[in-house]
């Protein structure tokens, strides 16, 4: 199910501005990798290059390679639509489709491909909602609009929507930053369960969260405002938080800047 990601020599641009510079790393399957770093260091931009969402931004373009197992996402003839289908994403603010019911929100991705029969659709929606620990809360109101749920529930709805299409990789862009502590805890527990099936990459501002949920942590930094962000180091989470090999990482983690 889950696939390994190999990034080599990746740079991303907004127009003429270089946002991230020459990043190489390996992301292991069936694990949680966290990206941390100060604001503007390009961790979210980098995340969005992993499913070709970066190029959706006007002026966005990418140089370098991202291998999903052995296939380059940026190779010739690669269909960005197929890439995004394979690499799912959860956003910073919960964004269920406001015009759709809860059921339709989860089914949205499946209906695109038309591969799932109508009779099976209900099963898949139920399974996905259970997978997102939301089933018990919404099973009686599947036909109500998704925007009527609380923030934390909406975010879990978005996770259900993302996992319903059975992606290989799940990208999460600060999924808890708009949520209260209890909802955050629910999502963190969920991430722990999901990593048995998916390769998970999570961007977070919250270092405790990175320490709690991730297996490996990557630290990004930028030399100065306006300079491109760089990968400083990536290692086992425990090592990053106890004994990082770069001074800047230790400074950031101990709260000396950022």
């Amino acid at each position, binding site marked *: 199910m889950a696939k390994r990601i190999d990034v080599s020599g990746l740079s991303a641009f907004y127009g003429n501005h270089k946002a991230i510079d020459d990043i190489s790393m390996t992301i292991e399957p069936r694990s949680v990798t966290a990206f941390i770093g100060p604001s503007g260091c390009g961790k979210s931009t980098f995340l969005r290059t992993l499913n070709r969402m970066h190029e959706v931004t006007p002026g966005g373009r990418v140089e370098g390679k991202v291998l999903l197992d052995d296939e380059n996402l940026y190779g010739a*003839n*690669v269909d960005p639509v197929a890439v995004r289908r*394979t690499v799912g994403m959860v956003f910073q603010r919960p964004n269920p489709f406001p015009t759709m019911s809860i059921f339709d929100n989860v089914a949205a991705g499946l209906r695109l491909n038309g591969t799932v029969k109508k009779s099976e659709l209900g099963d898949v929606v139920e399974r996905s909602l*259970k997978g997102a620990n939301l089933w018990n809360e919404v099973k009686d109101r599947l036909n109500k609009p998704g925007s009527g749920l609380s923030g934390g529930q909406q975010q879990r709805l978005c996770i259900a929507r993302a996992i319903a299409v*059975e992606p290989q990789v799940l990208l999460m862009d600060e999924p808890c930053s708009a949520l209260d502590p209890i909802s955050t805890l629910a999502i963190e527990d969920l991430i722990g*369960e999901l990593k048995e*099936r998916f390769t998970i990459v999570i961007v977070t501002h919250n270092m405790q969260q990175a320490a709690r949920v991730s297996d490996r942590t990557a630290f990004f930094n930028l030399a100065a405002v306006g300079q491109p962000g760089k990968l400083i180091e990536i290692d086992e989470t425990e090592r990053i938080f106890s004994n990082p090999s770069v001074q800047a990482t230790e400074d950031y983690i101990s709260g000396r800047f950022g």
Partner: protein
Amino acid sequence: MSHVIQDRPVRSATPATLTRGGLPRWAPAGIAALSAALGCGIGLAADLHSKVQWGLLAAILFVLITYTASSVVENRRQAKDRVATSMVWVCFVLAVVPLLSLIWTTVSRGLKVLDAYFLTHSMKGVVGFQPGGGVYHALLGTIEQVLLATLIAAPIGLLTAVYLVEYGRGSLAKAVTFFVDVMTGIPSIVAGLFILTTWNLMLGFGPSGFAGSMALAILMMPVVVRSTEEMLKLVPNELREASLALGVPKWRTILKVVLPTAIGGIATGVMLAVARITGETAPIMLLVFGSQLINNNPFEGAQSSLPLYIWEQYKVGSADSYDRAWAAALVLIAFVMILNLVARGIARWKAPKTGR
């Protein structure tokens, strides 16, 4: 919970590969050129007279070829996407062609007789189907009527908007909001009929510029109310509270803080409303009656106006009167466009400066 999920057989819907066959990047442009050529070719070969048919043929071919090419080389979803894109482009072209043609026709035909003489003379002593004459009396009439209408409608509209935003509570405000909406939908000829019924038939006044102004004012009021309301709602409450907290009475707060902040947007709204009523013909036809002579007094006697002048010249139906109609149309368009551009200029210049 996760074990529950895992022991189910997971049938992956993931595509086996990320790549697909693709049309080259120049494909849409190429297909467009090909269909345009085919459209013209078929048009010529089948001896179709009007270019409308050529264009429609090309448009249909464009969509069809795009769909076929994409479903052969790519997949069905991709083909649908491409068809949607090509339809959107076709819509755009379909709409732009007549609108450009309208502007082009007006400008090219209007310039024929439009000169200083045309702008400074009336139709006095000119036989309708012969050349000569001008538009001065109509221009004067339009300016007077629109000015009067604005003098009536702008204060009422403005105050109503202030009432709705600053004071309005309860059922009266709801009723006003509702009927402003209804009023927006009144056909201009119905507004004309209303003034005709009351002012002319019941009170016994004859046709005059002022009668037309009243009908125009009815059409203008709801537009002013709506746009002013929008602008007043954009004024942040903090400003009002800051002023009230200084002990400024509410009416002075509105006059000195709220209205000045929104004045750019309000002016824009009023000018757009003016531009809209300037082109109204129907009520003028019923109420102002039309005249070949200069009448400076909008309160007595028939006047002319630009739209009405165009209509009269069109009805005469000779080549020379058509020339005059187009020239007057050009003057009217220029008038309306200048109002619009100035209004939008004000909007940009006076736009509240935001923090970022």
